């Protein structure tokens, strides 16, 4: 396999009649999926969509999403997946950055974005079915039209493996979206590593509710298609019952998720998760640290499942992997060892390598690492230096090469010259009974002496009263005094990304208003 459309090309030849994808509305075999994607790819080329041009996808998790993605790739274009609920403002930022020629969306997306679409240079809007909405300057074309006169093979013109396949915009936890450029080679190198570690086969079936607009979710779709497996997808866990039932009905062997999602399922639907997921062979968890007690709880519920976590930024895909089930409790807080071809070095502030057990910035090089951000020289230069991605994450390697992440470089709170890692404080507070969620930030100290003061925002579990004084005492017991928050506040919700990452800047802005 040299380029991503080869995944479908080969699976279509090997497993034409096997189920490839399904969602609540439709199911497709590999034969159908290849034919549909190839047909649309030819049509796009015929419409003047040329190599290297960008096409945005604003669709919920669905067969339609995957069809759109591979059609764009098959035409030699660059796919730009966006969150289905993207706001017009964020959409405009992304579109102004990547200047797409067309957009794949649906009626709901069009309704939300139509006033923005006329401010862009998008020529074509591809919809699954006709819509009454009028995007003014763009032309609407339906899938029905694109799928007329099926063609079984992707366009023959070769695609350069070093060319960009996707721009994955990371809103991350701060700032303007940056388009991470991922080449066909980048993605395929990552997929080979993941495939080897998990041991995917044509017998695997996964339920993917993680957003396909992120590498985590999309990666699981790629992996299954690459090995002839099947994927059921829907957007999120808003309907936990339907998702759990799909685990049972599909005979799912994999169910990737976030600590937040698994926490919600275990706390509210534990017996159903155990029953519907009893055949699960592996569970990959990412986006935030999985607390050790949650690992134990999950393993008890699903004793046959191999629980894995990995470390990976969009810029570098999965860089380390670990099976917590196989490595045991000693490594429950590790994110594993580097994947094949990946080199991880821990650097100090002067760029020198640090020995094992010394905390510094995690840097990564290897075939999965992006070449930088789309048309953003400044951010590329800042984060990609001397052939290495500087992640901004703090961590250390142990003597056996296992990586442990301890926090974010730029999140460090400066308390009178002492650097405090907010993740460490959150970890202590999270252990307190009745605390459902916590976020710790640094705010300018109005007392004027300490530079920043530490503020902890807490969400109580439903029906629980949290005694803030007891939490403060717990912090004093487990943390140095300068790390103990000056203020503890109860809030209704901690702002997080849809994959569960804490939006620390947004939280800080919210909390600052209260002082």
């Amino acid at each position, binding site marked *: 396999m040299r380029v991503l459309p080869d995944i479908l090309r080969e699976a279509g030849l090997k497993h034409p009649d096997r189920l490839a994808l399904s969602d609540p509305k439709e199911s497709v075999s590999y034969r159908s999926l290849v034919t549909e994607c190839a047909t649309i790819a030819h049509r796009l080329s015929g419409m003047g969509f040329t190599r290297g041009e960008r096409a945005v996808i604003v669709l919920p998790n669905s067969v339609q999403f995957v069809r759109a993605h591979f059609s764009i790739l098959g035409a030699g274009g660059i796919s730009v997946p966006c969150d289905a*609920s993207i706001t017009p403002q964020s959409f405009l930022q992304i579109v102004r950055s990547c200047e797409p020629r067309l957009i794949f969306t649906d009626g709901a997306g069009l309704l939300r974005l139509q006033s923005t679409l006329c401010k862009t240079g998008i020529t074509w809007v591809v919809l699954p079915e006709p819509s009454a909405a009028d995007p003014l300057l763009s032309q609407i074309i339906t899938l029905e039209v694109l799928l007329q006169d099926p063609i079984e093979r992707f366009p023959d013109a070769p695609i350069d493996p070093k060319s960009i396949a996707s721009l994955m915009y990371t809103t991350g936890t701060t700032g303007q979206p940056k388009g991470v450029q991922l080449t066909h080679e980048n993605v395929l190198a990552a997929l080979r590593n993941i495939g080897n570690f998990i041991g995917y086969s044509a017998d695997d079936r996964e339920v993917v509710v993680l957003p396909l607009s992120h590498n985590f979710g999309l990666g699981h779709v790629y992996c299954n298609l690459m090995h002839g497996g099947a994927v059921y997808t829907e*957007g*999120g*866990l*808003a*309907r*936990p*019952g*339907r998702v*759990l*039932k799909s685990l049972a009905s599909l005979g799912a062997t994999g169910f990737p998720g976030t600590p937040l*999602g698994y926490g*919600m399922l275990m*706390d*509210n*639907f534990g*017996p*159903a998760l155990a029953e519907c997921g009893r055949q699960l062979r592996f569970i990959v968890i990412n986006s935030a640290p999985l607390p050790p007690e949650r690992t134990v709880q999950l393993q008890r519920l699903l004793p046959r499942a191999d629980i894995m976590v990995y470390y990976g930024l969009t810029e570098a895909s999965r860089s380390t992997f670990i099976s917590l089930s196989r490595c045991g409790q000693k490594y429950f807080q590790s994110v594993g060892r580097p994947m094949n071809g990946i080199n991880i070095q821990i650097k100090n502030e002067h760029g020198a390598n640090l020995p094992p057990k010394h905390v510094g910035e995690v840097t990564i090089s290897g075939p999965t690492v992006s070449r930088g951000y789309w048309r953003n020289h400044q951010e590329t230069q800042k984060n990609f230096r001397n052939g290495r991605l500087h992640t901004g994450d703090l961590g250390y390697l142990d003597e056996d090469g296992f990586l442990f992440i301890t926090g974010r470089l730029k999140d460090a709170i400066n308390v009178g010259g002492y650097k405090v890692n907010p993740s460490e404080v959150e970890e202590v507070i999270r252990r307190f009974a009745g605390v459902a969620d916590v976020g710790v930030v640094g705010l300018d100290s109005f007392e004027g002496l300490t530079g920043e003061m530490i503020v902890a925002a807490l969400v109580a579990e*439903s*029906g629980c009263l949290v005694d803030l004084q007891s939490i403060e005492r717990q912090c004093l017991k487990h943390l140095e005094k300068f790390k103990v928050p000056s203020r503890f506040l109860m809030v209704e919700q901690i702002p997080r990304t849809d994959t569960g990452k804490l939006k620390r800047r947004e939280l800080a802005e919210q909390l600052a208003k209260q002082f």
Partner: protein
Amino acid sequence: MSIEAKLKRIVCETLKIDESRYRDDLAAGDIPEWDSLGHVNLLMVVEKSFNVAFEIGDAIDIESVEDLIAVLEKYVGGLHCKSSEAV
């Protein structure tokens, strides 16, 4: 107050949506406010307000306002009701 009327108030208050967005066929995932956490929260508030405890088999079948009404009709005043003053 009927189950439907009480439920309407609970759904709007819990999901923090205007009554104009409420429909009998409103379902999880239809609006951003009814996401996974909103769903779990809604079930808990409904249980507390109607003084019932859904069995897990019933809880996983609930996806919409219509489902909630159907399940509540089964529970309220029935075997699953914690108190005769449920409604």
